[in-house]
């Protein structure tokens, strides 16, 4: 005979009284439903609210509760716990002495704030800055970009020119804004190396079990900006891809925390393509990098702080299981990176191509030029050259697309010093790419999305203006 769990008599009694009231057409047993009701399960209660027998159930629940000092959920959980512990003891042989993991010392180092914070900074410096920014966004991008510029693009231009005599078609496929010469080049030469290095790093951090430790170290800081340590995971993932991160905000507990995280992702967190390009560009000029980083950090904390005050609801509690640290397997990391890249490119490459087509069509019928001309005064207002206008327009199609455009502008010597900082800050803040906007809409609804998007656009340009003025007044030179 298999074991059977009997709850304390008042609960069994209540179950017996609730069961006959319930429909028999439910998929799950009435005993199970009755137990959910006794634990005040909000979903089931909402579902049965309208039923004529609901008040009677309510009465039974209140009566039963009066038999216990502690909540019914606790009483039920306690019975289950005793029951399952008994089974566990019956069917397992437990070690006489608990064996500790061989990485126990490392765990202590990572969670103790004295050693943990320096470790955190080292992980961010080497993992994100050195590996993704300098290696991915610098070395790899330069190499592949150079190869495209010198080897592939001229060949593509020549071949396309030879096959299609019409300038219009040539421009669609090749030349400055063509699908192959711009769309594919950005995807393969700039985004691919950066995103790959980021996902490699993220998968490594994830599989080693380091992320929950990061959460517990930062929980207190995050509480001041209306979030909990749990939010660090979507936010770090946002450094990889804001779209993916917006989807992952689902793991956050309260609506309030999800809205704040979505806003911070849309506004302040640069995605890896953007981050890689910006780090790659600015690392050549340390002052510029410091200004950009401090401005972004200040905005992140400031906006978070105010959002924490404005968005309704209570601060979320923080709880997280801390799995043992382990040496991740290379195969698992590579597989994860591969799967994430596949997801990313399944979603990104079509948009790159679409953006190329839109730009081509926009140029053809003149709309593109009108928008660019409309943006030109804004550029001057920010103290940027008018040539930066298309970059902001691409930024709408994809944030990284805009960052990649900035890379081009810098390479050709149009964007320098102060302008580079202002452009980098404004572009980082500027509205999320089409894909992220679409996911925000899916996850948060139309109202929140419009509110966040309009705030982000206004804020990005206003802050760009202010930053330009401040840098001019303070005569910061780069």
């Amino acid at each position, binding site marked *: 005979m298999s074991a059977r769990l009997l709850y304390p008599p008042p609960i069994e009694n209540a179950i017996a009284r609730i069961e006959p009231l319930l429909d028999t057409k439910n*998929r799950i047993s009435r005993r199970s439903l009755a137990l959910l009701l006794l634990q005040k399960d909000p979903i089931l209660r909402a579902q049965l609210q309208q039923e004529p027998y609901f008040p009677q159930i309510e009465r039974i629940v209140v009566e039963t509760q009066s038999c216990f000092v502690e909540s019914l959920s606790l009483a039920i959980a306690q019975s289950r716990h005793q029951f399952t512990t008994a089974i566990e003891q019956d069917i397992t042989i*437990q070690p006489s002495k608990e064996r500790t993991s061989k990485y126990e010392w490392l765990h202590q180092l990572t969670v103790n704030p004295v050693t943990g914070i320096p470790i955190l900074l080292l992980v961010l410096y080497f993992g994100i800055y050195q590996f993704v920014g300098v290696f991915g966004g610098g070395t790899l991008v330069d190499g592949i970009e150079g190869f495209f510029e010198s080897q592939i693009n001229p060949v593509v231009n020549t071949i396309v020119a030879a096959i299609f005599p019409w300038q219009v078609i040539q421009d669609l496929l090749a030349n400055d804004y063509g699908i192959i010469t711009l769309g594919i080049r950005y995807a393969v030469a700039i985004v691919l190396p950066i995103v790959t290095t980021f996902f490699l790093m993220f998968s490594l951090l994830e599989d080693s079990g380091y992320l929950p430790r990061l959460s517990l170290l930062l929980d207190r800081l995050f509480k001041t900006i209306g979030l909990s340590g749990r939010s660090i995971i979507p936010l770090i993932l946002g450094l990889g891809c804001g779209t993916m991160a917006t989807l992952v905000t689902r*793991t956050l507990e309260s609506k309030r925390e999800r809205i704040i995280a979505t806003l911070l992702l849309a506004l302040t967190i640069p995605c890896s393509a953007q981050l890689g390009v910006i780090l790659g560009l600015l690392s050549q000029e340390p002052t510029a990098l410091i200004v950009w980083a401090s401005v972004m950090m200040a905005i992140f904390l400031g906006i978070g702080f105010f959002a924490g005050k404005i968005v309704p609801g209570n601060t979320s509690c923080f709880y997280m299981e801390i799995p043992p640290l382990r040496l991740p397997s290379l195969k698992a990391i590579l597989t994860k990176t591969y799967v994430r890249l596949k997801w990313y490119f399944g979603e990104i490459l079509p948009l790159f191509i679409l953006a190329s087509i839109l730009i081509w069509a926009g140029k053809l019928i003149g709309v593109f030029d009108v928008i660019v001309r409309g943006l030109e005064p804004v550029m001057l207002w920010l103290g940027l050259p008018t040539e930066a206008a298309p970059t902001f327009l691409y930024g709408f199609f994809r944030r990284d697309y805009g960052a990649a455009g900035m890379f081009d502008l810098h390479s050709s010597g149009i964007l320098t010093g102060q302008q580079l900082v202002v452009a980098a800050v404004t572009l980082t803040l500027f509205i999320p790419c089409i894909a992220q906007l679409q996911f925000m809409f899916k996850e948060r609804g139309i109202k929140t999305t419009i509110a966040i998007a309009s705030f982000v656009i206004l804020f990005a340009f206003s802050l760009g203006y202010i930053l330009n003025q401040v840098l001019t007044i303070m005569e910061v030179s780069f």
Partner: protein
Amino acid sequence: MDCHDCHQSCQPKRKKIAWKLFGFGSRKSVNNDFSHHAQTTIALVGSPNVGKSALFNLLTGTYVTVSNYPGTTVELVRGNAVIAGEKVTFLDTPGMYSLIPITEEERVARDLIMNEKVDLFIHVIDAKHLGRMLNLTWQLIETQLPVLLVVNMIDEALKLGIWVDENQLAYKLGIPVVTMEATQKVGLKKLIAKVADYVRSTPLSTTY
């Protein structure tokens, strides 16, 4: 024999090997043959970090899901296999600790349990935390839905000196139990056999 990276291109070969070993293959090859049958749906449920996704990938031969880190599988993931000559759809669910959801992503599995037509729930638990995780197993048993228990990470538990009596556990709970180490494919054949028993015994023909 790792087909994760190329399951599109090497499906025919994979199907052959899979058929030989335990009579299951991948989605594309069976779509047409079985589309007129009533379909068996099997869902993998359990708390985060117990290897649900790894097991899912093993069963379906596809790697579509993102990760096993708490919170990065946030939606239902679907995959197909053929077991005992029947097309079976497997669902991978975001982690859940209890029938009463706390976060939004935990609701996915709960809604599946409460509302959807799922023929079998495979509850995946970590052998190292057996007692604690049996709590949800028992909640599932109480629903009277068909449940199969997979005690995963059995090798890791053994390294810590924990030994689990599979038969005794099955006897106590009154449901089929399989001990596994999914990452090493240990116990996979046993699991497939148990699922096959289930697929065969379900009177699918009567529903259509």
